[in-house]
Every structure is written in C-alpha cells, then in structure tokens.
C-alpha cells in the first residue's frame, strides 16, 4: 500500500499521486502517471535519459524520491511543445536528424532547454559541457550539439 500522498505541479498542472518511500520521480512519472516521455536509462544518474526540470533546475529524475516532492514544480518532455507547436529545440533536433532511437532525446532536450534559459548564447564547448551528463549511444553528439547551437541562434533572433 502506498503511504505518501503528494501534490506537485507537473507541466503547469496540480497533480496528486500516492507513492512508496523508495519510489523515484522517474518511476512515478512512468508507472503511476503514464508519462512515459521520461526515459529509464541507467537508473543511477549516469546517463541523463530521465532528466527533468525540478524547481527550475535539471535533475536526474531517477535520483529524486516522490515522497519529497510536495509542492515541487516539475517540467517534463510532455510539457515542452505548446500543443502541436514544437519547441525550437525539438524542431532543430528533427531538422538536424539529432536522434535515432530517441531514448536519450527527452533528457537532451530538457538539459538543452535548461542551458539556453541560463545562457542563450553558449559556445560549442559550453554546450558540450552542459550536455556531459547525457549519454547517446547511436546518433553521436555532433548532430545534437549542432541542433542545440542552431536552436539557440533561432531563439535569440525571435526573442530580440
């Protein structure tokens, strides 16, 4: 029986869930809330596939417990597009073919979004360091880095 009743804000909506003390945010998103956009890669904070934004910071959702999330604000990949309108990063990942199997993609997108909010004009080196906690085993990193730099440029143009 689940013991902990938690209300958190997920992608702008108040969401109630019940969980056990040892359940991670990743498990709750995928198993309790059917939000399977957040991917389970390693489950130990090494691969970044489960990256979400929690209270404004990127975190590995496999290393966060559900029980500690009362009042927290969570942003997942499901909240990135506005309806059918893709976020510029999502569009640029498509344009640059920066994904193949797609397991790492939601984590990369969340991490890149978080980077561009802090630093709208990153260098290639800064992008590579910011994405160092996200592993991709099929596309390789060049296309991803190019997509992020291209999205950054577009977002700067449209916001100015």
């Amino acid at each position, binding site marked *: 029986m689940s013991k902990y009743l938690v209300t958190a804000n997920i992608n702008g909506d108040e969401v109630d869930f019940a969980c056990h003390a*040892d359940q991670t945010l990743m498990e709750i998103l995928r198993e309790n809330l059917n939000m399977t956009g957040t991917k389970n890669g390693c489950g*130990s*904070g090494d691969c970044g596939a489960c990256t979400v934004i929690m209270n404004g*910071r*990127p*975190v*590995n959702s496999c290393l*966060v417990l559900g029980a500690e999330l009362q009042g927290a604000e969570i942003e997942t990949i499901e909240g990135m597009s506005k309806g059918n309108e893709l976020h510029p990063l999502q569009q640029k990942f498509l344009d640059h073919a920066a994904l193949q199997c797609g397991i790492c993609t939601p984590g990369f997108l969340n991490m890149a979004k978080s980077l561009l909010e802090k630093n709208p004009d990153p260098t290639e080196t800064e992008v590579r360091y910011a994405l160092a*906690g996200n592993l991709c085993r099929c596309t390789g990193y060049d296309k991803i880095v190019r997509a992020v730099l291209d999205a950054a440029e577009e977002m700067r143009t449209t916001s100015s």
Partner: protein
Amino acid sequence: MNEMRYEAPETIEAAIALLVAQEHQPRVFAGGTDLIVQLKAEMIEPGMLVDIKKIKEPREIIISAEEISIGSAVSGAEIGENAELKALFPGVVESVQLIGSDQVQGRATIGGNFCNASPAADSVPALIAANAKAVIAGPDGVRKVDVADLLVKPGQTSLTTGEFIVSFVFPRPPKNTGEAYLRFIPRTEMDIAVVGAGVSVTLNPDGTCAAARLALGAVAPTARLVEPASDILVGNKLEEGVLADLAAAASAACQPIDDKRGTIEFRTKVAGVLACRATKIAWERAEKN
C-alpha cells in the same frame, strides 16, 4: 519486512530524535545522488530516510565578517551560483562543481559528498585545505570538528549514532589568501579523481608565504593534510627548489591503491605535479586578493 519510511523533520532536534531511534535503521537523506543509487542496488536497506532539506540550517549559506558557513544540504549548483562564496573560497567551489553532471549538481550536496566518505571525493581535500570545521548536531548537543578528523576509512566517518553534519564553517580568509583545487581524470569531465589536490595559501606583504595548507585526495584511504607542505612553503617565495620540495612532500604523503584508473606509481607522481600546479594557481589568486 517493514516498508521503508520517509520523514522530513523541520528542526534539527526533530531530526536527531528520528536518527537516534536505531530500531528504524535511519539514514540521513539530502541530495540522494549516492543514497538512492545504493538503495536501488540493495547495498543498503534503511528502515527510514530522514530528509534534512526541510530544516533551515543545513540549507543556508551565511557569509559574515568573521566566519563563512555552508549548510550541509546545499547543492553543488547553489554553491556554484554564489559569487561571493566563489570569490572567498574558489578552491572549495571548484571542487564541488566537479562532482558529476549538471543534473547531479542540481541535487548532490556538499555534506553528502563528505559523508559518503569516498577517498576520491572532490570536495574533501578542498575543505581540508580551507581549514573547514564540520558543525555536527547530535543527541549530546553540537560539536565542531576539523573535517580531516572525521574521516576514518573508505565509506566511513566518525559520526556517531544520531549525529549529522549541519554545516561546514570556515574562518574568513585573511587578506592575500588564495585557494585552488585540481584533480586528474583521464577524461575532461564526468569522472572520479585519480588524484585530487586542494591548496590554500596566504602571502605576506613582501610576497613570501605566511601560511599554507595542502591536502590530497584519492591517494590514501582518506583525504589527508600534507603537514610538511606548510613548513616547506612558509617564509619562502614560489621558487624552483621550493616547488621540488613540495612535490616530494606530496608524493611522500601518498599511500595509494593500484586500480584500473591509476597505478600506485602514477598516483604518487601525479600527486606531486598537481600539488605544485594547484599551489601556483592559489598563489596567483593570493597575490590579487
């Protein structure tokens, strides 16, 4: 088997009351970046997690005229964003910023890095070099201990039942003090130190060294202060002979293991090299402060 409980006390006293109840096999929970991994791998089976992030004191950074305090449950990202802290203790801030990815930084705490007690923990040599004391709360009250004295062996500190680290406190560095932390890893990011070196240097007005502390990580069962380094540097300028003596003292302080990331010979040599490089950086910073 009883299901594990999660508790989030709001005061230090309430946390201690939970932590002394050994029948629940409680564990302190902060960033969770080590603890959740150990939990999922069934390396630990605590009956209760005591989350200290809802308590005020472990979450604060306090910078006063005499003393600086970093709460044990402050994350690496929060430490890195504090410009004043970075100016005062660049070595400590650099060391914390090297722990894991940005995602891990968002959660991993300085107290957790310390209490996980890895010989290779990046923050520990920097904390020792900066002369930090741990403020420990427990059933018998509060005690302040030099951080190096808390380290027992890999994975173990000398914290006793019911105790937890609330914060790390540092004396405000005197004028012309500089700090640095460097580590060697085979990659450029996301790796565990093969050798880590933390240095704090204070200079006299004539440019000679007034005080110095060098600490090394990943070269012994615990991070350690290289005591002879102080005598080698104090009264001197950063000349070649002095640096050679410093490197020799650093290497002599090593009792490393051989493993896939570095041999005994390599770690011993690199400890000397990094001690000198970190000292040079700390020295340059001291000249500007």
